[in-house]
């Protein structure tokens, strides 16, 4: 697409230094990037105030996957000539690569400056199709074709509209490598990876040196777990000088796969980093099994192969898996039957509910499979968000300030345009708002029309129906009317929070100061209203924790406990606070509830050995030796300094579960670390006098 304007800008620049610029362009076209770059350098040095040269040079950098350098040159061109169409177009292309909402504005501005700038017109068509706005995309593509009847991107956009709708034959087939690359991109961002791969292959058949397409082929093969070929394709790009961030980082990531171990069951494939595999496997594997069983029942379908989950302790590694994709993708991403997600160890404690993310992503596996990847983004995300709280009400994300602002400022999008909020957000917060809105829409439909209606909508999407038609068919209502009713419902539900939000912010600032100054009476007086005005606020410096702290300082343990229980129930995730809740519950003689509080931490931050040990001890006395074994095994998996205690605890749990041989082994391990450890010595004597091991007790949890 970038090379389509080649001739147009070339004509302008030719006037300046025809012979040499032509040479630079020729080298560029021959993919001699270094040679072309050198000539551009000399040209710009000789004529530093020529914006056209800077724009062409920027485009060279952009073509060579160096957007930062390109951006600098476009900015310099704009300084020389305000509203330079080529420079604006360059910036629009960079914004488009990052799915930035301003890309369309920049392209329009470029067109205002040069109404014949076909590449800007093509970009508008491209961006509209990214929003799944087919009508607008077709309109813009036709405009591009009117400017240039051979516009490859114009044809590719029109052809892709047909191909995405499963029409195999189209009169717009561009029969060009770049055109098939465009189609590949659209299939990928619509989560139809296998078809996307086929279009990239088609592009490479026509032009084996189109390394941008080859790189995307490699990246998407990697997404589907076809690592061997993925690596070869990416390596070919790298060795031929195409070393954009996606190529470079994907290769680096694949090199690191040697540090991962794979665990399989008939239904699951779990890839974990060696350093945390022993700890995380029991927790993640069991949630995967549970999610599959639950969703197969809910979605009334059977998966045909195991689901793969890759868990990355280094967020940068995970980020490689989401490069070039729209949406937040901050915690997890699903590629068909394959999920990649952050490890709970990859985030500060309390900032990430890994189990909620896992269930969210697993839901995508079902909605994508059920619709053969034809589900629109808003619906699959909405269902996934809906499923988070369906597992447990305190899971899922809370109402955030971004969402409150969007409701207050009437920024929620019409349901037929909601995909735009994910793909081309106009602000960073809009993606979060779109997740919220999509989830709420699914909740709303579920409550008003029922689960079967959501399933019927899913089946309609499988038939490639568009959102507006699905709404009309299943909800028997016009989309605009649906928006009206839905927004009224959200506004009613959030009325208190939205109307009191500004006062709440002021009140919280004052409360934080009072906590710092230990004015506990004032905290106790003011915090309840702040808590009730915005009950979903459980992040740093929330009213629940402030109140609990104040009550504890005043010696009112009962009130503190009640506050901490409220915090837990509403979705508070700070592991330290949940540990404090467990302690208060234990002190209050409620060991079962204390264990439940600690067990919640397992779904948030299972890296805390002390929490595992406390939970193991609680379960041991509550006659849940299986649970205790899991927890004490988790302690050992953290490789604690106190090996003797950890092995001894596990030995006791095995003994309680009548696994005497394992108990003996663990006891020996404890004493091997600390031969003088008296409790372990006593247990060893006890075990040596035990009768033959009995059968293990049945699973209790």
């Amino acid at each position: 697409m970038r090379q389509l304007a080649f001739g147009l800008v070339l004509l302008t620049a030719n006037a300046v230094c025809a012979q040499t610029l032509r040479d630079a362009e020729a080298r560029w076209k021959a993919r001699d990037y270094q040679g072309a770059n050198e000539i551009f350098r000399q040209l710009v040095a000789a004529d530093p105030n020529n914006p056209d040269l800077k724009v062409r040079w920027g485009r060279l950098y952009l073509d060579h996957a160096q957007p930062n350098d390109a951006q600098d040159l476009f900015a310099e061109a704009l300084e020389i000539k305000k509203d330079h169409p080529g420079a604006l177009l360059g910036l629009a292309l960079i914004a488009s690569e990052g799915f930035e909402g301003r890309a369309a504005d920049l392209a329009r501005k470029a067109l205002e400056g040069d109404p014949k700038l076909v590449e800007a017109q093509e970009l508008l068509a491209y961006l509209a199709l990214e929003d799944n706005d087919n009508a607008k995309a077709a309109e813009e593509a036709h405009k591009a074709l009117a400017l240039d009847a051979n516009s490859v991107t114009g044809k590719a956009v029109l052809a892709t509209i047909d191909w995405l709708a499963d029409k195999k034959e189209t009169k717009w087939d561009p029969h060009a490598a770049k055109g098939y690359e465009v189609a590949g991109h659209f299939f990928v961002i619509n989560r139809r990876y296998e078809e996307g791969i086929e279009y990239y292959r088609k592009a490479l058949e026509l032009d084996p040196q189109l390394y941008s397409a080859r790189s995307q082929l490699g990246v998407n093969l990697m997404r589907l777990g076809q690592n061997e070929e993925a690596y070869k394709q990416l390596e070919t790009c790298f060795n031929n000088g195409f070393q954009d961030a996606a190529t470079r980082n994907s290769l680096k990531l694949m090199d690191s796969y040697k540090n991962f171990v794979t665990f399989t069951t008939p239904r699951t494939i779990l890839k974990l980093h060696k350093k945390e595999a022993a700890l995380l496997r029991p927790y993640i594997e069991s949630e995967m099994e549970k999610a599959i069983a639950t969703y197969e029942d809910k979605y009334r379908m059977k998966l045909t192969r195991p689901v793969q989950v890759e868990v990355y302790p280094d967020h940068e590694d995970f980020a490689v898996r989401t490069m070039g994709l729209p949406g937040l993708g901050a915690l997890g991403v699903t590629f068909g039957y394959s999920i990649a997600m952050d490890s709970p160890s990859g985030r500060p404690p309390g900032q990430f509910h890994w189990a909620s993310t896992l269930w969210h992503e697993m839901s995508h596996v079902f909605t994508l499979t059920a619709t053969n990847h034809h589900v629109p983004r808003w619906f699959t995300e909405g269902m996934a968000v809906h499923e988070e709280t369906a597992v447990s009400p305190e899971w899922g994300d809370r109402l955030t300030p971004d969402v409150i602002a969007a409701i207050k400022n009437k920024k929620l999008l019409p349901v037929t345009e909601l995909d735009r909020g994910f793909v081309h957000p106009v602000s960073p917060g809009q993606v979060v708002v779109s997740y919220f809105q999509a989830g709420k829409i699914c909740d709303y439909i579920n409550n008003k029309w029922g689960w079967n209606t959501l399933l019927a909508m899913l089946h309609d999407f499988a038939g490639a129906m568009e959102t507006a038609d699905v709404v009309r068919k299943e909800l028997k209502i016009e989309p605009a009317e649906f928006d009206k009713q839905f927004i009224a419902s959200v506004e009613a539900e959030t009325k208190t929070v939205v109307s009191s939000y500004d006062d709440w912010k002021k009140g919280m600032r004052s409360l934080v100061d009072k906590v710092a100054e230990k004015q506990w009476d004032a905290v106790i007086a003011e915090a309840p209203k702040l808590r009730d005005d915005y009950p979903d606020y459980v992040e740093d410096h929330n009213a629940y924790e402030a109140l609990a702290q104040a009550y504890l300082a005043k010696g009112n343990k009962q009130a503190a406990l009640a506050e901490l229980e409220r915090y837990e129930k509403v979705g508070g995730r700070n592991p330290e606070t949940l540990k404090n809740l467990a302690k208060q519950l234990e002190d209050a003689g409620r060991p079962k509830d204390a264990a439940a509080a600690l067990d919640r931490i397992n779904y948030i931050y299972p890296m805390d050995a002390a929490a595992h040990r406390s939970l193991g001890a609680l379960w041991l006395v509550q006659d849940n030796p299986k649970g205790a074994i899991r927890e004490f095994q988790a302690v050992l998996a953290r490789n604690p300094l106190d090996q003797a205690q950890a092995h001894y605890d596990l030995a006791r749990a095995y003994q309680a579960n009548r696994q005497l041989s394992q108990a003996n082994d663990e006891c020996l391990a404890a004493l091997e670390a600390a031969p003088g450890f008296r409790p372990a010595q006593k247990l060893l004597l006890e075990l040596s006098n035990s009768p033959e091991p009995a059968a293990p007790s049945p699973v209790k949890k």
Partner: protein
Amino acid sequence: MKLAALLLASALSTPASTYYLTITGLGGEPDYTQRFKMWAEDIDTSLKRAGGDANVITMQVPTREQVRSRFADLARQVKATDTFVLMLIGHGTYDGVDYKFNLQGPDITAAELAGLMDHVPAQRQLVVNMTECSGGSIEQLRRPTRIVVSATRSGTERNSTVFARYWAEALREPSADTDKNEAISALEAFRYAQQKTTDFFETQKRLATEHSVIEDTGKGTGERTPNLENGEGKLAASFAVVRLGANAAAARDPVKRPLLDRKEQLEQAIDKLKFEKAAMPENEYKRQLTQLLLELAKVQEAIDK
């Protein structure tokens, strides 16, 4: 187990005392002042709770003169058979040559601190310097019979540290006693505090700005992981900072002497067996270990009666 043997030997000879001196430096800001005070009080409480022969002194933000005066007292009180522990909590600086511990008024250099410690007759000494830049004090403080722990590996780690928080925790935390001999050695406390400090930075997803080290040979620059290869940690393993139980008292009972002798033999046999583990068939190792551990457990049971 070698530690247990050394403790027993020491307990059977002349009763020796451990002298503890904890000094907090200037905080500079209320937050640091409060933090340093809290950590020092935590240490003070743990040491006093451990009781027995502890002589515990804590100086909150003293002047250099007050420090000198306190060391003069110690030089008179302490015997060669005693042990001496100095713990420094606060801020430190390092200019590439001199390390200074920030006090009220003029600061005190590492060289002067070393000189003051040299005048304390205790042959076995431990100094735990928990300030930023504390790695810059190792060269001055190290001696062949002195263990030096520093919160940072060099004088150039200049961010304020959290090591002291976890060192204080180690002195009251039974899980720091990894060999379960009811005493927390300098090496155990170091490893505990080091691990907790590492966990702190990892959990917070922050770049670690401090890397604690230990030096107990009198000639090293400090090691992150003391072991047989680098020769560090041997003295620290046998230096009990806090005793948590009553093992020393039991050791003084002459009636139990034969049992204690047998216990020591068994512990040595277990140590030897563990050393040979790699060269033995697994089952044979397990059989012999079980046998020794069972006998040890029975002997301990008899001692405890």
